[in-house]
Structures are given as C-alpha cells and as structure tokens.
C-alpha cells in the first residue's frame, strides 16, 4: 500500500482527487442550495459532446469539453431565466442531444478508437501534469469568485426575488454559478466520470447541509468530506482492484447511509 505512493501516477491521482473534491464541495453546495441538481446533471452529460468535438478536431479534451459545457451552461441559464416553466423538458433535451453529438463526432473521427468508458466512469489513474494544472487553476478561480462575491451569491441563493429588489444582478450571479458548475463537471470527469459526477456533487453536500450553520461552512465541510470519500474510494479500488470512479461513489453512498442512521437531529 505505502510503496504504491512512490508511483507518479498514484501521486497524480491523489492530488487530482483532492483538487477536484474541494471544487466539487464548493460548487456542489451552490448546486444543491439553488436546486440545480438536474441542471448540473444535464450539463455533465452534454459535455460528452465537447469530448467528441475535441477528438474530432484534435483539440485537448479539457478544452473541447470546457467550451461545450460552458456553452450549455449559458444556454441553460438563459432558458431558466426566460422559459422557467418548461425548463425540465429543455434540460432533458440538452442532456441527450449533447451525448448524441459526442458519439457521432467520435464515429466520424477516422482511425481513432476513443475509450468511451474512461470519460463516462473516470480515469483518475491517468491524470497528467497538464490536467493537474488545469484543476489547480480552476480551484483557485472558484475560490476567488466565491470569496469576492460571497454576499451576492448567498443572497441570490437564499431568496432571488429579494436579491433582485436590493439591486443585485441576479441573472449574472446565476449564470456565473452555472458556468463554474460546468467547469467543475469537466474536471470531475477525470476523477469519477461524467455519469457519476452528480453523486460527487451532491452526497457530501447533503451531509454537510446538516452539519453546518452557514453556506461557507457547508462548502468547507463538503470539500473535506468529498476529499475523504475520493481518497477512501481510491484506497478501496487499489485494495480490491476495482474501478476507481465507482468505488469513490459507493464509499460516499455507504458513508451517507451510515450518517443517516446515526445522525438524529
């Protein structure tokens, strides 16, 4: 177990797990309190279209997926602000159409046999230095924006109508949260894959919501729990030779189950 730590790919996996878990804790908190879980799910799945785009045009995967996911986030924000009553239908559409675009683009790429599974379920043991840098920059970016805009984000999340009356730019804050969610989903694809990402964004937050008295506290506890689950899942997958992304999610779910039984409020 200990000697595994000397491998570079294991060190990368641990570092990636920590960076992505912290981002997921912060952004997951915002997604949960803003009731955006379904929206985030749609953005996560549609980002496969960006992976197909990157493969087809020979771009870096993170770049293609980020552009596609951010475009989807802006579209979702626009739809939420203008077509609120039909939003679930549109999310369903975006969810499936993005994935279909990705599959078709990979089909059309000559001589390239992309490993679909690694994007759907994660490939944390194949994290490269460039990936780590992208994750680090994104985490710094998220922490910076959330720190500087904390009071506006809190006001919009708690009561958007009142925030609007107090002169806060609600559509801008809302769109920013969705764009940060999209970017977090993209980096989380490496760790748990785009299908499982929603669990990483919600399970730690669900527990943290009960343990914290403020949104900031919720973000920190969520980040800590997500890190714990990710590293726990990694150990589990190493010991029993299982898929890492799924192990992380099941470790989280097991912890949640125990928490719900033990925690009485």
């Amino acid at each position, binding site marked *: 177990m200990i000697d595994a730590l000397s491998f570079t790919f294991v060190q990368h996996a641990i570092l990636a797990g920590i960076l992505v878990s912290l981002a997921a804790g912060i952004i997951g908190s915002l997604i949960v309190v803003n009731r955006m879980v379904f929206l985030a799910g749609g953005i996560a799945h549609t980002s496969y279209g960006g992976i197909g785009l990157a493969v087809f045009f020979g771009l870096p995967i993170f770049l293609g997926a980020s552009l596609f996911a951010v475009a989807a986030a802006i579209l979702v924000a626009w739809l939420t602000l203008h077509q609120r009553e039909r939003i679930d239908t549109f999310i369903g559409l975006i969810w499936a159409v993005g994935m279909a675009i990705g599959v078709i683009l990979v089909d059309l790429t000559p001589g390239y046999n992309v490993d679909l599974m690694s994007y759907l379920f994660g490939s944390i043991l194949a994290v490269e230095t460039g990936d780590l840098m992208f994750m680090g920059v994104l985490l710094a970016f998220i922490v910076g924006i959330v720190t500087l805009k904390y*009071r*506006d984000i*809190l006001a919009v999340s*708690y*009561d958007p109508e*009142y925030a609007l009356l*107090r*002169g806060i730019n609600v559509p801008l804050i809302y769109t920013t949260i969705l764009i940060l969610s999209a970017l977090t989903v993209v980096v989380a694809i490496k760790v748990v894959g785009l299908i499982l990402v929603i669990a990483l964004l919600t399970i730690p937050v669900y527990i943290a919501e009960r343990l914290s008295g*403020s949104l900031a506290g919720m973000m920190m506890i969520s980040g800590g729990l997500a890190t714990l689950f990710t590293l726990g899942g990694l150990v589990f997958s190493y010991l029993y030779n299982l898929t890492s992304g799924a192990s992380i999610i099941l470790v989280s779910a097991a912890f949640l189950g125990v928490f719900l039984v033990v925690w009485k409020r």
Partner: protein
Amino acid sequence: MSLVSLHNLAFAYDTQPVLEHVSLEVNEHDFLAIIGPNGGGKSTLLKLMLGLLKPTQGSITLLGTTPSAARHDVGYVPQNTNVNTDFPVKVLDVVLMGNGAEHHPLFGYGIEEKACAMEALQQVGMEDFAARRIGDLSGGQRQRVMIARALCRRPKLLILDEPTASIDATGQKEIYDLLKRLNDAITVIVVSHDLSVILGYANKAAYVNRTLTFHDISDKSHIFHTHGQTDDHLCEIDILEMLGGESCDVCNNCDDKGGAA
C-alpha cells in the same frame, strides 16, 4: 405628505387586464390594508409599487420618484417565508441580505451594516436569535426576521404581502402589534386576507378586484352603523362586500372611478 401616489394605473399580462383605473394616495404614517379576492390583482399592485413590473398605463410615484429609484427607501416582506428552511444560514445573515448591492466592502459586510442589522433585529425583538439557524425558528419568529430584513435599510415605507398567512393566531397578533409600533415612524402597506388588520390596525383600506375602491377607516364606527348591522356579530364576508361595494356611502374619500367592474 403623499408617500405613494398611483394615478389611473392599468396593468395587463399579455392581453388579460389585471388592474384598471387604479388611483391611490398613501400619506406619511398611514397604515393601509389592501384586501380583495385571490386573483383580484393585489400582488400585482405590490409588484408595480416595488418596480418589479411596469404599468401598461398610468403613473406611479413613490417617495417623490419612480419605484426603482425609491427602492432603497422601501422595505418589502414577501408572501411566503417558509420556503428554503433547510438553507444553512443564520438569522443575522438573513437580515444582512437587506443591505443593498452598492458600495460594500470587498469581502463580507461593513461594521455599519452589521450594526444596522442588529438594530433591526432589536426592533422586532429577535436580537437573542441572531446566531440561530433560520430553519430552527417558528413561522412567526421567521416572519419577524423577514420584517427585520426589510428594516435593515431604515426604510420610509414598509410593504408586506400577507405577512400572517402561515402563522397561528397568537403569532398574528404579535406581528400586527409590531407593525403598529413601527407605524409610528414608518408608513405601512399590508396585503391581507385577515380582517382583524383592517378593524384593529389600519387607518385606510383599499379593496382591489381589477379596480380599486378606497376607504378611510380611521373612524371605524362609520363602517357599520349605516349598513344596518345591528347585532354584534359581523360576518367577514359582509365586511368584505361592504368595502368592495360600489355605492358604499360610509367612505369619506371614495375614488370616483372605483367600484366593482
């Protein structure tokens, strides 16, 4: 001094008229109750006054300016405050949200903003709950916190949308007593189904059902004696009909254009 002045206001969602020929004057230190059936346009009228909606016709003057420009001097308590009770936020933080978006420190809240929020909590008698989670409070306590949030900016006008809709009877009386106390310094406009507010607290009443009928009810004895109500029991429906009636001869100040459509 006239604090709110609506002149021949009309509003329609698409082509569906919601309000027509609405005129109203609210003076400083008035306590105006807005009543009327559901779907009659009460909430729309509030949204127009708050500048959340633009009238299709007519004009609104608040504190001598437009509703959006007057926003900082208007406190608002929305209808449903029992939503989002799982949200991890402390009472003081909710009150602090009453502060505006303009010129605040780079991070967090300024000392003055915090002092002002504590003062608002004291005004509603909730200062001991400042560090409690909002979800742990009762409906009545939470409503008082929402009033404190509206008071955070020391408004000249306080607008409340059904403030007692989800509160038990004791809590309702406490809320109205609090509003009456605040009314010494602040003009209050309250939308309510609850007639005790009209009989016990308000000095003006406006019945809104597409059009608006205005009544000065500062002398309550006037309301009843001319309508042949001889027994002590008053049915709420009777009063509502009376206030909404076209030929109500008790009102001192009926709007000419008022009356049921």
